[in-house]
Structures are given as structure tokens and as C-alpha cells.
């Protein structure tokens, strides 16, 4: 890595204003706005860096400018690079990278909507995070109060792109869907049965979460983190606590790190087994789903015995976990894992033995690896299409460094392989759980939490069951946050759905959508 910085200095010496390491694993590079494009291009080409997140911060009060941050990951290096550029308050524009890097399309538009910074050269600069009929407000600017009461909607409703041609018609679906799922709008252009083009409209559940983080005292904000996406309560809660712990240099005791690892893996298995059942349902194999939901219930009851809550809420806290486990709980944990493992084998065998199910899943909803790379697809969906990042292995946190596990990667990218990734991951997780539950869990459950120092930045990632969860914070005075950026993996995975459904029949949309199973609330915040 020393060589990396040497090369970087040689090539960009004059342009780089400073390089500083907040922590070993987090390097900040400050450059001026005009150099950002060449620097990121260089990092991507020379070091196969992946741009994981783009976000902004309103620092007009302290520094007189806005800042944009570009979070990059260099393959094989456990550190994150955060490239920071200023955006002038009197000339609120920044250069868009979306044309070369479609992965940041929605994130740049989010900055436009929430901060009022214009992404110049963006190929599709329309609103994304605030609907078109919202007034001209920028909620994440510091001079916009959280409690602002906005006037009733006026202005244009969103105009979907027309799809024209003989026999072509458009099918609008949502935001209220037929099943018990979250709200979003899908506009399908179809010719006969095949889908020509899908337009998405998200952010129906936008509830001001990032802004609210700036108002809550830090210990209470843990509960808000648990409510970013209910199915990932523990992952988001942990990501948030980790960020605070890094900012305040709190060393979490090993016992808590192992317990967090166990709970993170339980959350993964829980959701994966439910998804496997739901995919089977969407192609008519209801019996498999009955078994899958029964298995999920086994785990959810275990969650409750371990944490007092079926979604693992109220367990993680800043400094560790709120309470330890006694012998009864540990016994129940080991027994349930063993029982689940054999039941899970039966479930997978049941689905594998159904040829009609396999026939519906194979070659359905294909996301090609080159598309996945362009769109920066992460997590389960990414790994089914050749993407390999996994924060547990690449940036070890909690106690993941202590266990060995395999990260399944396939190139086919169809529904069948997104299901296979889940099956493989459940089996790997069971391995992690077996090792982790053999460890002796002694000592403190949480560290003493000192007053959180102001004006510290920290990045935290967790490989949630769906994919890479990123939290970035800047602390403020009096146990409050200045900024909390949340990136759920769903945000960059939605455009993958658009790619994957093209050419498929509309009747297969539910199963394709389910195979991604993205969080609307995590996207919309």
C-alpha cells in the first residue's frame, strides 16, 4: 500500500491537497473539484477500485462549502479511500460521473434533491429522492428545519417516458401492491407478454431518516438505525454502533464482537430462508414455502429467546451488546442451529427435486456480469452475477476475522443462481455459527462509553444479508450527530431489476423481483 500512495503522489502530487488517516482503515484524500474525475478514473483503471458510495454534507457553517465524498475500495486492501471535494455554496454544482459510472446515477441525483447541488453533465438529472410534485426544498441543508410543514402537493406529477409502437402498451403497478409488500411504483412497457422496458419510482416511504439522525441524541439514534429497514434491524443497528465506536475510539469487548457476529449471521439465515420460500411460492411451489416459513419461525423464536425481540431489536448498543447469554440461551442457540441445518437440507432437496420449479427459475431474469459491474451491484444479487465484494472478508469487522468461510460467486445471474447464492450462504453461515458458538463467551458485554467527542468522522460497513450497508457519520457537540449518511444495498441494486426483467414475461416479474428482494424503506429512508 505504501507503493500505492507513492504512485498516487507521483501522478497526482500537485492536485492532492492532503491525505490523512482518521483511522488505519479509513484514508481521506482531499482534492479540488476539477480533479475528481481524473482521480477516480485513475483509481478505477490502475487499481480496479470500486466506487461504493457518493454522498454530500452541508458544511457551510463550519467551512463555508458543501463537501462531496466518494467512497472507494481498492481490491485486496482492507482500507477505504474517501475522496473529498468541496462544492462552493455560491456555485452549487459538481461534475457528474454517472455517464461513465452508472452506479452513481441515483446517488448523485439524491445529492441534487436533498442538498440542492446540481450534478452537471448528468445524463438523466430528473428528481429521484423527492417526487416531482414536491416544492423546491432541500431537506438535508442545515437551514431546513426537520419539522418544516410543507404546503400541499401542487406542481407536476411524475411523467413516465412513453413507450410507443404497434401493440405496445404500458402497465402501471403500485404504489399499493397486491401482496403484503412495501410501496413503490412500477411502470411496465410491454408488447404482448414480454417486458420491453421498466420504469421505477421509489421513495414513497421517504420519512426524513437521515435528517432525523441529526436531531436525536446518539444513544437513541441506535433505535432509529434499527428502523431503517426492519428485515436488517441488527445489521443497520450494528453498522451505526460501529461508526460511533470508531469515532469515539471505543474498544468493543471480544464477547460482544462474537455475539454480534452470531446475531448478524442469524439475521442472514432468517431472511435467506424466507426468500428461498418466497421464490418457490412465486412459481407456484407453495409447499416449499410452507416449510421455509416454518423454518424461519424456528429462527425468529430463537431470536426472541436470545434478544427479547423477534427482529433482534434492542440488543446492539454503543460499546457492545446490552446483555449476555446464559447457559440455557446458549444451549437453545446450539440446538436450534443443529435442528435447522438438517431441516434446511431437506428444504433444498425438496426444491431441487421439483423440475418444474427449476425450469421456471433457470434463465429467468438474467443480470449479466458486465451490467452488474456497471451498476455496482452488491450483495446476493451481485454475487450471482460475478461481483465478489463481501465486507465480512474484505473489511473484517465484529469477529469475522476469526472464522473461515467461502463467498459464493456465480456468473450466470439468473433467478436460480440468486437462489443458489442464498443456499450457499446459509450453509456458510451455519459453519460460522458452529465455530462462533464453540467459543467461550466470557467477560464484559459492552465497553464503557465516554462522552462522544465532537467533529469526528467515521465510516462503518456491514455485510447485511442483502449486501453492503454503509454508514458514515460526523459527530457534533452534546452527544449529537452533525450528519449521518445511510446507504442500504437496495439503493444501487434497484436499477439491476430494470435490466434483469427486460425480455422476460410480465408474469415472471414477481419472482424476479423476489429474487432481488430489495428494501423500499432502506432505499427511501
Amino acid at each position: 500500500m505504501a507503493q500505492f500512495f507513492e504512485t498516487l503522489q507521483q501522478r497526482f502530487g500537485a492536485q492532492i491537497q492532503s491525505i490523512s488517516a482518521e483511522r488505519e482503515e479509513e484514508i481521506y484524500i482531499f482534492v479540488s473539484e476539477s480533479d475528481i474525475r481524473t482521480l477516480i478514473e485513475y483509481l478505477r483503471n490502475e487499481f480496479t477500485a470500486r466506487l461504493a458510495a457518493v454522498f454530500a454534507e452541508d458544511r457551510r457553517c463550519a467551512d463555508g462549502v458543501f463537501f462531496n465524498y466518494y467512497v472507494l475500495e481498492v481490491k485486496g486492501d482492507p482500507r477505504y479511500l474517501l475522496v473529498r471535494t468541496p462544492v462552493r455554496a455560491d456555485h452549487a454544482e459538481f461534475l457528474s460521473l454517472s455517464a461513465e459510472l452508472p452506479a452513481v446515477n441515483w446517488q448523485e441525483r439524491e445529492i441534487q434533491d436533498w442538498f440542492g447541488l446540481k450534478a452537471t453533465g448528468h445524463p438523466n438529472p430528473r428528481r429521484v429522492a423527492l417526487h416531482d410534485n414536491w416544492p423546491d426544498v432541500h431537506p438535508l441543508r442545515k437551514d431546513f428545519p426537520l419539522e418544516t410543514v410543507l404546503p400541499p402537493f401542487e406542481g407536476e406529477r411524475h411523467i413516465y417516458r412513453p413507450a410507443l409502437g404497434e401493440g405496445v402498451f404500458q402497465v402501471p403497478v403500485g404504489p399499493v401492491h397486491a401482496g403484503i409488500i412495501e410501496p413503490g411504483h412500477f411502470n411496465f412497457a410491454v408488447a404482448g407478454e414480454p417486458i420491453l422496458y421498466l420504469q421505477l419510482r421509489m421513495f414513497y416511504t421517504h420519512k426524513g431518516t437521515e435528517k432525523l439522525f441529526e436531531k436525536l441524541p446518539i444513544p437513541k439514534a441506535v433505535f432509529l438505525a434499527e428502523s431503517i429497514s426492519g428485515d436488517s434491524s441488527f445489521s443497520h443497528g450494528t453498522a451505526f454502533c460501529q461508526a460511533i465506536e470508531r469515532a469515539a475510539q471505543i474498544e468493543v469487548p471480544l464477547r460482544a464482537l462474537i455475539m454480534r457476529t452470531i446475531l448478524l449471521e442469524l439475521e442472514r439465515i432468517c431472511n435467506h430462508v424466507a426468500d428461498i420460500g418466497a421464490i418457490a411460492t412465486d412459481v407456484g411451489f407453495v409447499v416449499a414455502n410452507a416449510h421455509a416459513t416454518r423454518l424461519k419461525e424456528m429462527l425468529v423464536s430463537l431470536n426472541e429467546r436470545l434478544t427479547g425481540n423477534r427482529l433482534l431489536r434492542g440488543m446492539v448498543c454503543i460499546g457492545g451488546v446490552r446483555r449476555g447469554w446464559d447457559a440455557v440461551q446458549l444451549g437453545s442457540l446450539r440446538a436450534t442451529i443443529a435442528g435447522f441445518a438438517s431441516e434446511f437440507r431437506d428444504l433444498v432437496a425438496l426444491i431441487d427435486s421439483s423440475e418444474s420449479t427449476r425450469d421456471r427459475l433457470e434463465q429467468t431474469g438474467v443480470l449479466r456480469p458486465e451490467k452488474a459491474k456497471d451498476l455496482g451491484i452488491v450483495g446476493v444479487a451481485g454475487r450471482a452475477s460475478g461481483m465478489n465484494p463481501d465486507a465480512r472478508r474484505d473489511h473484517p469487522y465484529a469477529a469475522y476475522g476469526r472464522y473461515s468461510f467461502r463467498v459464493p460467486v456465480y456468473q450466470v445471474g439468473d433467478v436460480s443462481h440468486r437462489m443458489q447464492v442464498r443456499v450457499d450462504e446459509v450453509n456458510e453461515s451455519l459453519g460460522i455459527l458452529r465455530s462462533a458458538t464453540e467459543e467461550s463467551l466470557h467477560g464484559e458485554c459492552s465497553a464503557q462509553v465516554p462522552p462522544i467527542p465532537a467533529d469526528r468522522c467515521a465510516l462503518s460497513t456491514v455485510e447485511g444479508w442483502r449486501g453492503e450497508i454503509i454508514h458514515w457519520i460526523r459527530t457534533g457537540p452534546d452527544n449529537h450527530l452533525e450528519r449521518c449518511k445511510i446507504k442500504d444495498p437496495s439503493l444501487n441494486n434497484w436499477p439491476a431489476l430494470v435490466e434483469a426483467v427486460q425480455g422476460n414475461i410480465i408474469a415472471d416479474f414477481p419472482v424476479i423481483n423476489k429474487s432481488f428482494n430489495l428494501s423500499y424503506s432502506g432505499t427511501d429512508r
Partner: protein
Amino acid sequence: MFKILQKTIATGIVTTKYPSEPAQISDRFRGRPSFDFEKWTDARPAEEVCPTGAILVCDDGDSRRVTVDYGLCVFCGLCAEASADRAVRITQEFELASAHRRNLILTAEYLLSTDGTHRELRGVHQRLVDLEADADQVGQQARERIQKLLKRSLAIREVDAGSCNGCELEIVALNNPVYDLERFGVHFVASPRHADMLLVTGPVTRNMELALLKTYQAMPEPKVVVAVGACGISGGIFGKNYASLGGVDNVVPVDVYIPGCPPRPQALLHGILLAVGRLGEKMYMDSSA
């Protein structure tokens, strides 16, 4: 096919007997925090840690009013940990659904010592205890009403008006073989036009207000609305802000409130069966009108 049958037979019946028998739940489960107001010497530490403001302390000179709102509570248990006098205890109670928002709120009046601790309890207003009967009774009545009035079927339309999807997970769980809602003749339908009951989670976001209203208006009369979870009842941790309108009853009238974060499936079941009772009343009123 043989394998499927074999597995089914080997699995046997997994459906819970609730509500005709008490729910089998872990003693670790965090249900309703119960308050021993006599014993409570200071409500301030609990107020201090409560993440949603479900416990509020309002001082006026040497008197204090403490308000506890189960409609805001996320059942984190911090109030019990913070109260050194052990006056707050976490119970396993989960059947908290109520037809009235005010039934979810308790208040206690205290006279204060000079250091701000409670000197004397002056009075408690609580309606929670005389809540709407126990679950078995509610279930029995509901079953009779479903059979008589609804011709053995109750149709529910669910709307997520902005939730974090936690409540959705538990609502979906009602359809699994363990809770099996269909055994009561209750099922979820795709269209509001087929629905008797609207089950709403949220805080209602600004972006979902219109969709929720339209769904409500599309339902035939008589209809009942059930607000699910802390967010659905009161806005929960999100409250009201530029993007959130708070609880469901700020947008459509609500007949039953089900506390929880999220409410466990048995709590949902209890609330839904309670709402069937409300629907029965409305139908009776309609037919006698």
C-alpha cells in the same frame, strides 16, 4: 410428489393453539412495561432514556404529571433498566390492542420533594387494565361473528404507508403454518374493493398519504381500519416531520390500534379479532338503520 407428501406427514401439525390456549412465548420476550406508580420514586431517568418519548414528565411547581404512552413504546426495556427503584418491570404481556387511542395512555400525578423525586402519589389514570377482555374470549366472539355476519370470511387489505417493513414481516408471518390466519376465515386480498378491513402500517409518509386515502375510499362500507405498530399508531420514532405525517389516524379514521415494534403475530391476531368485533357492531348498526 411422494417426497412432498412424505415431508408433510413427517412434519405433522405445527399450528399454534392460540388464542384458545395461551401463547407459548419465551420468558425473555419484552412485552408491556408495567409501572408500579406507588413504588416509583423518580420517573426522570426513564424519561431520559426512552427513545421515542413514550414516557413524558411534566413538572409544575411541586407537582408532576407522568404520562406513559403504549402507542409510542418500542418495547426496548430501557425504562426498566434506568429505574433504580425497580418500579418499572418488563412483562410478557402482548395483548395490548385497543379500540381507543386514549386507552393506551396512562398518567400519574405526584407531589415532589425538593430534589425532584416523588414524595406522594396523588392519583393514577389508567384504562389499560380494563381493556377489551382476554384473547380467548375475543377469539371466540370473533369466530362467531365471522361465521354469522361475514359468511365465514373476513377479507383484509394491507397497506404499508411508510413502515420500515418490520411490521410487514410479522403480518406475513400470520400466513405461515404456525399462525395460519386462514383458520379463522381471515385472508388477505389484493384489492381494497374486496376488503372489509384495512390494516395499515407506517408512519404515513407525505408520499403515501394519497395512496392510503384512495385505498380507504375504494373499500365498500362497512369497513374497519387497524393501525399497526408504534409508527402506525403515533408515528413512533419518526414522529411528524417534513416527510412524515405521523400516525394513521391523521389521515383516515382508525378503529383499532395494535401496539408493538413490531407487534408479534399473536398480538396482530388479537388486534384483528378485536377489530372484527368493531366490524360486527358497524354491520349491526347498518342493518338496524
